[in-house]
């Protein structure tokens, strides 16, 4: 077997991932635009739980209100941060929402029914997203976690110095606009959002396609049976494959005969939280150090959970 890089295979794999993911990014961008136009910062501040745990728990279930997958969740999270969403809530939302939404509940149920896989995926997603949110959320100020663009009021490129003032002014301006003006504004924001986030999706898809074209999967499949190694492997696979959370259950079905149950559940709970393309999108929202935490913490926690399921629960 030779490792000749075949540009046509790469193009097919890259465009396939892009075509499958881009509608979800577009829907996320539109949602972000609608939030920008119609949700006032004051409303968010009024409805937010005051304490950190409440905020993190609320964030974990916020996906039920904003059904987004891992491509759409990043622009929506950034927009919510700008509207003043508390840090723990945003992070829990970011990690949990790609699974914690009606669409992915349905696809997981269709693939696995209500059993250890569904329940495990639910519990692990909840525990990991809330824990990571609390850990990162306890880091002092949002300014040390978020990039300027994602900070409250950091919406416009001209607004660096007097951001709060400008933000209020902007909210006020929109409040008096007509419905069609607001809608037009929302779609305009969505267009810019698409370019801002789309570049990360494209770089990530290219990287994922490159890995798939160069690394033989079957070599890795040999690792599939150990209680620890299988979980580790499936998480790495989830990270590399970057498959959309709305359909990853069907993909996981492919592995149920080969892999341990813990590995399948970890694949399904870790994959939607972080993968190659979302990592790149995270860099548009968070500072580099935080992006690293956002990958490593969920990775380790999911690994522990998967190994625990294999060893202690003996599925």
């Amino acid at each position: 077997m030779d490792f000749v890089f075949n540009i046509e295979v790469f193009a097919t794999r890259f465009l396939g991932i892009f075509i499958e993911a881009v509608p979800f990014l577009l829907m996320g961008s539109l949602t972000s635009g609608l939030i920008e136009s119609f949700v006032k910062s004051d409303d968010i501040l009024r409805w937010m739980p005051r304490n950190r745990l409440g905020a993190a728990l609320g964030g974990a279930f916020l996906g039920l209100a904003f059904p987004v997958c891992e491509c759409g969740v990043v622009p929506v999270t950034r927009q919510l941060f700008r509207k003043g969403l508390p840090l723990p809530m945003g992070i829990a939302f970011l990690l949990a929402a790609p699974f914690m939404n009606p669409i992915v509940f349905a696809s997981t149920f269709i693939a696995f029914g209500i059993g250890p896989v569904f329940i495990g995926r639910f519990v692990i997603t909840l525990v990991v997203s809330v824990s990571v949110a609390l850990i990162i959320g306890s880091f002092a100020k949002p300014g040390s976690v978020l990039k300027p663009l994602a900070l409250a009021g950091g919406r416009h490129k001209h607004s660096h110095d007097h951001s709060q003032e400008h933000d209020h002014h902007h909210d006020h301006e929109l409040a008096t606009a007509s419905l069609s003006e607001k809608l037009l504004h929302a779609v305009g924001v969505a267009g810019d959002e698409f370019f801002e986030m789309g570049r990360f999706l494209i770089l990530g898809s290219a990287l994922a396609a490159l890995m798939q074209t160069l690394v033989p999967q079957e070599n890795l499949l040999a690792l599939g049976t150990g209680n620890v190694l299988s979980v580790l492997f499936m998480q790495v696979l989830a990270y590399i494959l970057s498959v959309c959370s709305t359909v990853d259950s069907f993909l996981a079905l492919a592995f149920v005969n080969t892999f341990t149950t813990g590995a399948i559940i970890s694949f399904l709970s870790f994959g939607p939280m972080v993968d190659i393309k979302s990592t790149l999108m995270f860099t548009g929202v968070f500072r580099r150090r935080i992006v690293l935490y956002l990958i490593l913490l969920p990775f380790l926690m999911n690994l522990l959970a998967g190994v625990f399921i294999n060893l202690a629960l003996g599925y």
Partner: protein
Amino acid sequence: MSARESRIDWAKLLILLGMGIYLTQLIISGNLLNYINQRFAWLAYVGAGIFFALAATSLLQRIKPSLHAHQHYAIGWDIVLVVAFPLALAVLIPSRSLGIEAINGGISLRPVGVGTAATFARSPLDRNILDWLREFNRAVPAEFNDLPVDVIGFVYQEPVHDDDEFMVSRFTLSCCVADAFPIGMPARADSLDEVAIGSWVRVQGRLQAANFAGELLPVIAVEVLEAVDEPEQPYLYP
């Protein structure tokens, strides 16, 4: 708005329009099925619709600048070029389904997913490669002796195979090509001279339990081997 910003805005407009046209073209030509499972084809419709809406809004804002006083992000040429990359690939490289070049470490006899009662009820001649492999997992090889087979796939051969041995293969696709998975049925023909490795063939014959690359498997004893065009649906959907 500076002349540079104006040029970038026009470039963005063209990319949005181009993406919409590209998705529409994939849908019309049927090439969409080279990339994603037909079950998710509706996503491309949604994507095309949103791209056209974004392009139209962008155009409206170009014509009546008062509607859009400020840019929301500082989007420069670097971002515009990255986002144009998929379009460049789509234009420069002809659309192709994954074929033999994409097989990266062997073919599996164990297919993705599980069969349903409906797939198992299919008569032998209606079964595709995926159906057959699911059947193979349910019984010992000898049980399939003399059953007739009529399947379409591409010719795949490994170094361990004898000259007359090959696998008639397909990729299965759950979602998109990210999860493409090659599967194949063992087959034995009098001569493979007429068909090229990697080309699409229709294989007719009967199953016979036999030793194939060191394993006892149901092997197609090929009666008719003919070259065919690539099917409109190049992948099988588990």
